């Protein structure tokens, strides 16, 4: 039965829609500013600030970023590669871990749970990590150095574990077993099928982590052709700022034009663009996956 609308409902709905529309537009506003600034001449930004429509239209920002197109494209390639490989591998490992950890008949459940949980509280710190990666694992200048550290993220494992526990009833395991299914069959045919929202959520987290990662490049990559996109662009901005700053203190000649403001904005557009397209596809799982998974246990 439909609840009868009283006469205030349409009014309320109109007001609500208006409000939501205004809020949505307000969210678009900064993005539009960035977009407009990325097409504005740098000098004009310095002189008269940001405007919603470019005062002096110019492509110099994009030109600077794409001064060496092969490098930007290479960085794009690296980021896409690490994101895809890292997410796929990470999802596989974390769903496996999550599944095993929630099985009550797993003997070392508590030991492993504690081991994973422990690392969310304690870390060795930056220097031991760096020494481990460079001296013992010898991962400097390899893609492994970029992918490896994200593969087993404790928080995501816990999220996965809780999700599987709530999404797959325990009786299902028993009945599957009676029907003759082995552990791996249960994992691939039942658990994976039922935890799609959780997998989508964790997958998105992972993908975002890999897409936004720059710290890995900063620490372990010396070879410029292996920079991730984020770091590559971040480094351009930093180099400009630093050279400008250092010029004051050391007298090192800059000798080049640096359209900083417009370049920064152009970069923001270039970097955020692709990942924006990922959201619509996983968004419908997102609310469910996150709310269920966020209940700690």
């Amino acid at each position: 039965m439909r609840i009868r609308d009283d006469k205030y409902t349409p009014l309320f709905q109109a007001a609500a829609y208006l409000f939501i529309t205004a809020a949505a537009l307000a969210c678009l506003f900064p993005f539009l500013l960035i977009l407009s600034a990325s097409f504005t001449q740098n000098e004009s930004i310095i002189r008269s600030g940001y405007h919603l429509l470019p005062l002096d239209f110019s492509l110099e920002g994009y030109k600077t970023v794409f001064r060496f197109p092969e490098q930007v494209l290479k960085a794009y390639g690296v980021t896409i590669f690490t994101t895809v490989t890292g997410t796929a591998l990470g999802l596989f490992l974390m769903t496996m871990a999550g599944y095993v950890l929630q099985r009550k008949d797993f003997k070392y459940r508590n030991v492993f749970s504690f081991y994973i949980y422990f690392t969310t509280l304690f870390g060795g710190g930056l220097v031991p990590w760096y020494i481990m990666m460079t001296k013992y694992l010898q991962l400097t200048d390899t893609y492994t150095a970029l992918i490896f550290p994200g593969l087993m993220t404790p928080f995501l494992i816990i999220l996965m574990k809780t999700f599987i526990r709530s999404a797959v009833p325990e009786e299902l395991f028993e009945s599957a077993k009676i029907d003759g299914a082995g552990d791996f069959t249960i994992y691939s045919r039942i658990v994976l099928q039922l935890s799609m929202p959780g997998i989508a959520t964790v997958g998105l987290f992972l993908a975002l982590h890999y897409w936004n990662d720059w710290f890995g490049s900063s620490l372990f990559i010396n070879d410029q052709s292996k920079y991730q996109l984020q770091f590559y662009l971040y480094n351009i901005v930093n180099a400009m700022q630093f050279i400008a700053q250092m010029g004051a203190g050391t007298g090192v000649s800059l000798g080049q034009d640096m359209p900083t403001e417009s370049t920064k904005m152009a970069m923001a557009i270039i970097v955020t663009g692709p990942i924006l397209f990922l959201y619509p596809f996983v968004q419908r799982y997102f609310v469910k996956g996150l709310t269920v998974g966020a209940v700690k246990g």
Partner: protein
Amino acid sequence: MAQKKKLGFTVLSAALAVSALAGCSGGTDNAGKPAGTGGAKEASAPASGSGGTGSGLDTSKKVELQFYMLGDAPKDLPVIQAEINKLAEKDLNATVKFNYTSWTDWDQKYKLLLSSGQQVDLIFTADWTQYQSYAKKGAFQPLDELLPKAAPKLNGFVPKDMWEAVKIDGKIYTVPATYKEYVTNGFVYREDLRAKYNLPKPTSIETYEAYLDGIKKNEPDMLPLASTSNPVSSLSDPFRELTRDPVGGPLPYGIGIKYSQPGEAYSYWGSPEHLEELQTMKRWMDKGFFPKNVLNNKDTLTDQLTSGKAASIFGDNPTRFNDSVIKIASTHPDWKLEYYPFPLSRGFATPVHPIHNGFAIPKSSKNAERALAFYEKLVTDKQYNLLTQYGIEGKNYTVENGYYKMVGDKNSNGFGREAMNGWAWRNPEYMLFDKGYDNVKKIFSELDKIQKPDIFTGFAEDYTSYQAEKAALEQVTKQYLYPLQAGLLPDVETGLKTFLEKAKQAGLDKVQGEYKKQWAQYVKDKGIK
């Protein structure tokens, strides 16, 4: 059960606290190792080697040297590296790999490189990369015994007083650059506007203020002077450099030391001099020389000048001034920039200290001798030097009437002038300059006439004992001193009093006391009067 749970919680939180503390100190542990006996073995070898190059050098085993530089690698680096390796393999049976830290987080990376024990054979050093403090902590190998043996030519090439000047605790840890430059400040102003409105040439605070007044009156849309969100570096430092006779570079923690009386360090913050400076800034603010939102200003000084937003910079160095001139020449040929160096008013100029540019051999290097021999080649061998500074002649650059000329433009040329950031191995005998650099040379030669040595930069501050106070003080400075410095507070005297109070609470006395003590020790050791 409940009790057990509680206990567990206590243990956990205690452990958490410990881990948090451990995290804080994690970064500095390894660098604290005392200077070992790296050079002791070589001491027994005779320090002859005055004959040919590297007479005492053992080159039987082939090595790859790891060379670490700041910044980003130029596009054509692999080509240059291959060329250099061809030469180095023949001369020294060694190859070299040029690594770059990138400008992002380079100081953290520096710390990691030097503390992780990774193989690094040569690394760039400068006062601004904390050469002094790394050397003090034993991150580098002492070169005193190594130099005459592995790099006799280099040993003789660098003047004796420079070797003396870079010594930390009596030992040489870096090979200084021998090219002499000045990074002193000076007024940069729009000569075309000055002439148009018949304003005085800025040579002192008074004439500069008159110039600013004139700009404000005649060009109401223009900012008379460029300012940034850091009023200490953009206003206070040049003000002090021009009027307070300080030693060397900007001094931290409100310390004041006069060049004429280096033995007496005093507290500049709170002194009548400081009050006068703040009142001047207040007056400038009231006159509208800089905008009210100055503390949020993110544009660089040069950007504001070259875009025509501002009419002058209160303090910039000759090289950067020249860059602005070149930039304006192409975008606004009708404008004209002039420069007046502060040293002309002060009566003397100090060239940059030898510590400012150099290369050190880290503790972790196993090929110290070969590294030094290779570095000698970079500096003294014309072929190595030109190749690493300017690229391949004919392909990257040509020489015209003795001037450097780039082939193509910045986008098509993969190796521009000094693209490797090799400022440290510039050799004045081989250096090539752009035609546009003549301006700077002219200023430098003017300053040469009145030069005096920089006595400050050899000083290595050790802030381990007051690290916490230092951090607190930085916070207080930003919160209470910056607005004062930018003239934003209506009552300067009360504002200064509040700031000093807060600074005292943050531990100003301890910081200044320690600093003064260390300075006094330095002055005594160096015999400066």
